[in-house]
């Protein structure tokens, strides 16, 4: 690599009015625009799409439907890309989505130890902790310790399966349906589904508990 001689220092004053990083980002955008590589309005539209179209509400709808509709749940676990593509109201997914089911015997947890692979279309952009060293380093070696950082504890005998997202497959955890939700609509159920419950670092909300 030849270009490592240009400036790689890093300072923590991102909150100043115009940080070094911010100036650098602006300069790069100016260069790419002047060279005719990108239309700045297209960059605005990308950001807007991330802000409005994707997010955990998509995954929550899928989970709620799987809790309500046994046939959908079967097809989700068999081929999640195909099953999710039948739902017009959530964002389109690629070919490589896999849903993994939590049961009383087994708890699933998803990580990307090498970078930040995450099911964007289902959950939105990943939170900082998902992309940071503490989670990436420990999730595969000490998943119970990591769960404790989230205030989550599992019965001692529960099997924990950690999915390291090392290729283009993306994993969505299907959490267990909370007790006390008989007869609830999909929409009501979707309200209980948290982002972390679909990563495997949390549980869905409990009906009636303060949120």
């Amino acid at each position, binding site marked *: 690599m030849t270009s490592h001689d240009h400036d790689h220092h890093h300072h923590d004053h991102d909150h100043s009015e115009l940080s070094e*990083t911010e100036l650098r980002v602006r300069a790069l955008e100016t260069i790419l625009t002047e060279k005719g590589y990108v239309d700045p309005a297209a960059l605005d539209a990308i950001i807007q799409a991330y802000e409005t179209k994707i997010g955990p509400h998509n995954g929550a709808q899928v989970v709620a439907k799987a809790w309500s509709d046994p046939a959908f749940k079967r097809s989700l676990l068999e081929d999640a890309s195909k099953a999710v593509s039948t739902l017009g109201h959530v964002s389109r997914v690629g*070919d490589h989505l896999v849903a993994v089911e939590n049961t009383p015997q087994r708890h699933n947890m998803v990580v990307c130890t090498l970078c930040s692979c995450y099911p964007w279309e289902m959950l939105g952009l990943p939170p900082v902790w998902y992309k*940071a060293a*503490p989670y990436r380093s420990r999730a595969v070696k*000490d998943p119970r310790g990591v769960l404790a950082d989230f205030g989550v504890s599992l019965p001692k005998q529960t099997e924990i399966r950690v999915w390291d997202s090392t*290729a*283009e497959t993306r994993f969505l955890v299907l959490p267990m349906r909370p007790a006390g939700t008989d007869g609830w609509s999909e929409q009501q159920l979707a309200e209980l589904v948290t982002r972390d419950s679909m990563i495997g670092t949390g549980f869905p909300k409990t009906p009636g508990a303060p949120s």
Partner: protein
Amino acid sequence: MNGVHDMGGMDGFGKVEPEPNEPMFHTEWEGRVLAMVRAMGAAGAFNIDTSRFYRETLPPDVYLSSSYYQKWLLGLEDMLIDKGYVAPADVAAGHAVEPAKPLKHGKFKRDDVERIMVRGKFGRAAPAPAKFRPGDRVRAKNMHPATHTRLPRYTRGHVGVVERNLGCNVFPDSAAMEAGENPQWLYTVVFDGSELWGPDADPTVKISIDAFEPYLEAV
């Protein structure tokens, strides 16, 4: 490469610290960086594996002390300079002074946004039958390429079981080096915690990776 990005199993990074009500972007420039990476990738300046490789190649101290989107920015700058889309003189001047280099798919425009919000397809026709089947015991090879690979260090040399055949996919080790897609079979391989972390490991833990066929050998 045996880089600092390959973090699985490392100690000493401390507790996971979830941030309540975390915003999508912590500063405005983070969104611009994300958008520039997506746009330039879609325009054909680089593929996703090459962009990962450039972030991995950042010096370890820079990698560890930079925020996520700072790493994206640094990797993007390096990549665009190395591939000839941006000249060091452009960066020094803060605007374009050298002529542009044509992009494979042309300028990234507003109409292109919708298509990039759907994930790409990585499945490819298989050049040969799959070597392994679900249930087969396999060893992750003891391999240490100096270039990009998606076989994490913590699994190398260890024995697991093939759980699922995920089809034939673009091989990141080749694609990152712009050496073609070189499609390979991909498998979910499951390891016992004790196989990876020794006899004191939590006996209830299993870890899986998605491993390309060239990463694996029959046991």
